[in-house]
Every structure is written in structure tokens, then in C-alpha cells.
């Protein structure tokens, strides 16, 4: 069965089974920012935007994305380079596994909470993006900097 979607601004058409996840589709198309981590929607490394909202692509059926506008961290890095720059400047990463998901979360947090979101709101929002290296302080700084737009 066919799924037609826009992925990082490019029209794509894939033939996948009903049970395929959006993550399967994205990975099969050669994009590797979204990763299979926990596969139960908890860790956040498979985060992508679907029609502007953050989703765990591991739990998102590919067929539900038919007609949708999907963005991964690769695409966000091109159209919103300031978000990635904020992570670099704040050193909001160590091993980097969680970073693409944190970038997606930063964009989603800005869209949902607005530029005036305070630290506790952002902490709450990032609850589903686990980092096992840094301790979150610099990630939070990066998300704040990205939300502030500087």
C-alpha cells in the first residue's frame, strides 16, 4: 500500500505494509537522524515533526502520515540552522545520539509554548527526550537559546 508524504520539503512515495512505522519509512529512505532507540515512545531519539507536531516516529503508523508534512532533524538543520547552531554554541550534546531528537523537541517547544516559555515549562516539555551523557543543563540552555532565536 502506498504512502505519499512530504519529507523535509520533498514529495515522497513509498510502498509499505500497514504495520510499518514512520521511522521505518524514514530510515529506509536513507535519513539517519531519527533513530530506533527504545521503540516504545519514551526515549525521544526517533522524534520527528508531523504537520508541525512532535511525534515518536517509532509508534507512528506510516499510513497515518499519508498526505502529511514530515520534518526530521536533517531538514530542520537546513531551514532552521539557528536551532542547530544553538546546540553547538551551548555545547548541548556529548555523544550526540539524542541530539536530533532534542533539536526536534526544541522546535516543537517553541511552537507550542511560544518564546516566553519559562524554564520549568521547557523542562516539562523535554521530559520525553532522554540524554544519558550531559545531565541536561547545556541541552536546556540550547533549547532556551533556540526559543529566544539567538
Amino acid at each position, binding site marked *: 500500500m502506498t504512502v505519499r508524504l512530504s519529507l523535509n520539503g520533498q514529495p515522497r512515495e513509498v510502498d509499505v505494509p*500497514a504495520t510499518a*512505522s514512520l521511522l521505518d519509512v524514514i530510515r529506509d529512505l536513507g535519513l539517519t537522524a531519527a533513530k530506533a532507540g527504545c521503540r516504545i515512545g519514551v526515549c525521544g531519539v526517533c522524534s520527528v515533526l*508531523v504537520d508541525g507536531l*512532535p511525534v515518536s516516529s517509532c509508534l*507512528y*503508523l506510516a499510513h497515518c502520515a499519508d498526505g502529511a508534512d514530515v520534518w526530521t532533524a536533517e531538514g530542520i538543520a537546513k531551514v532552521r540552522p539557528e536551532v542547530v547552531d544553538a546546540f553547538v554554541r551551548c555545547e548541548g550534546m556529548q555523544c550526540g545520539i539524542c541530539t536530533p531528537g532534542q533539536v526536534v523537541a526544541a522546535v516543537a517547544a517553541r511552537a507550542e509554548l511560544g518564546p516566553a516559555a519559562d524554564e520549568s515549562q521547557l523542562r516539562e516539555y523535554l521530559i*520525553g527526550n532522554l540524554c544519558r551523557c550531559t545531565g541536561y543543563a547545556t541541552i536546556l540552555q540550547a533549547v532556551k537559546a533556540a526559543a529566544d532565536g539567538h
Partner: protein
Amino acid sequence: MATEPAFVAPTTVQEALSAMQADGALAVGGGTSVGLLLGQSLIEPDVLVWLGRIPALRKITVDRGQLNAGAAVTLRELSWHPAVRSSLPALAGAAGIVGNPRIRAVATVGGAVAHADPRQDLPPVLVALDAAIEITGPAGTRAVPAADLATGPMETVLLPGELITTVRIPVVPSLRSVYLRFTPGSTADYPTVAAAAAASRDPDGTLASVRLALAAVGPTVLAVPEAAELAGQRAPSAAAVAEIADAAARRALPAGSRLGSARYVRAMAAVWARRALTDCLSR
């Protein structure tokens, strides 16, 4: 070998109901629970019937003292909806803390109910709010009290071919509701116990109704009928509230897990039932 399941995305309830008559049909709200169960090979559906394209099921309406949430309304939509936030703050609050933002953007009201996981946030609030689950099937439409929907962990009274269409919640101006959750580990984890309480008052301040429900303390959400004994009072004593909380703990059927031994969960059930009632009655 099982054949590959089909995926259909109907745009009307009627089409969805037709699709649900196929053998092995499974309704999909947002797909977070279905995706989880598929990923762990715990279900083998023949047809996935996705409800996300049915406008009639994506609406929240307020009508004649009742808030109606379509089965395909997402938890994010529920948590931000102005009428839900103002009239049913416990429901908006519960919907706003399920899992994480990625789950809430996708998971639906109907899915949260149909999944019947006794550890989840929405069901106890719906029981405390005396919600009715509207179910449509080949034999017509029926309404089941939220407290009666689940029969066991991930088991419900839903018959093959039936579909949850709407969750209907009574709204009265004097209603006060709270939802408290005890998550000693990560707040994104399942709770050790969660408690929802709702109370309404007559114009003279007398309690007209008091309802209490607990999650994560047994195979289904636990309704605590003893809470109704507080009705007729104006300011129940701490002792009366503690008695109801103890009754709740006695009704609990905890299995014990990494989130607490059975004995601990039962003890916490009394504590959080008391806190939820006290908080609700002081509002």
C-alpha cells in the same frame, strides 16, 4: 502464515463501522498503543481502521450541560481546549501529563479508554467525572459508564464490530475536580498510584455528589462508591475523609511491581485517595 493486515482510513463514522465488521478489525485512534502492541507482537489485527480522518470524531462540543469529546480527539487537543480547562480542569490536567508531548500529540481520547490500561491517566478522571462512553455497533448505539468499560487489564466490554465514538462528560457549574499522581521515579513513568476526585455542591453549599477513583492499584480503574457517603455534608471532617480513603485502600487489588510492593501500593492508595478528596473538597 498470517497475511499482511489492511489499513483503511474512513472519513465517516458509518464507513468506519462498516470497516469494523471485518474479521480481525481493530480501531486505531492515534496508533501509539496499537504501535506499541504491534511492535511487541502482542496483537495480530487483520484490518487497521484509522479514525484520524473522521471529522465528526475529532470535535469537542459543549451541549446541554455535557462536554462531548470525539474518540479521535488527541490528548493534546483535550488538554488545551478552553471549555475543558475551565470546566473540567482535572481532565485537562490529566490529558496534559500523559507520557510526553509526542504521545499527547498523537494519542486519542478513544484510544486511552479502549486500551484499558489501569495505570493510565485519563480513565480514573473519567470515572470520577461520571463520564459515559458512547459505543456504536451493528446493533445500534449504547452508552457505558466509564467505570464499567474495562473488565480487566486491556480488556473491555467492547464487542467485535463495535466502535467507541464519543466520551460524554457531565458539566455542572459547581463541579470541582482534581487528579493527583504519585510517580516516585520519573514523571514520565507509570504511577505507583493515581487518584481522581470530583465533587459538586447544591446552591446552599451542601455536597451534592462526591466521586473518587484510583488508578494503578488493580486490574482495572477502581471506583470507590463509599465516597458518595460524603454527599449531604457541607464540610466533611478529616476523619470522614480518612475513612473513605481507607475503604478505597481495602478495595484495591494491587499486584505489586517495580513501582511498589502490593503492601506499599495499598498503603499509598489510602494516602493519595485522602489527598485527592481533601484537595477537591477544599476548592
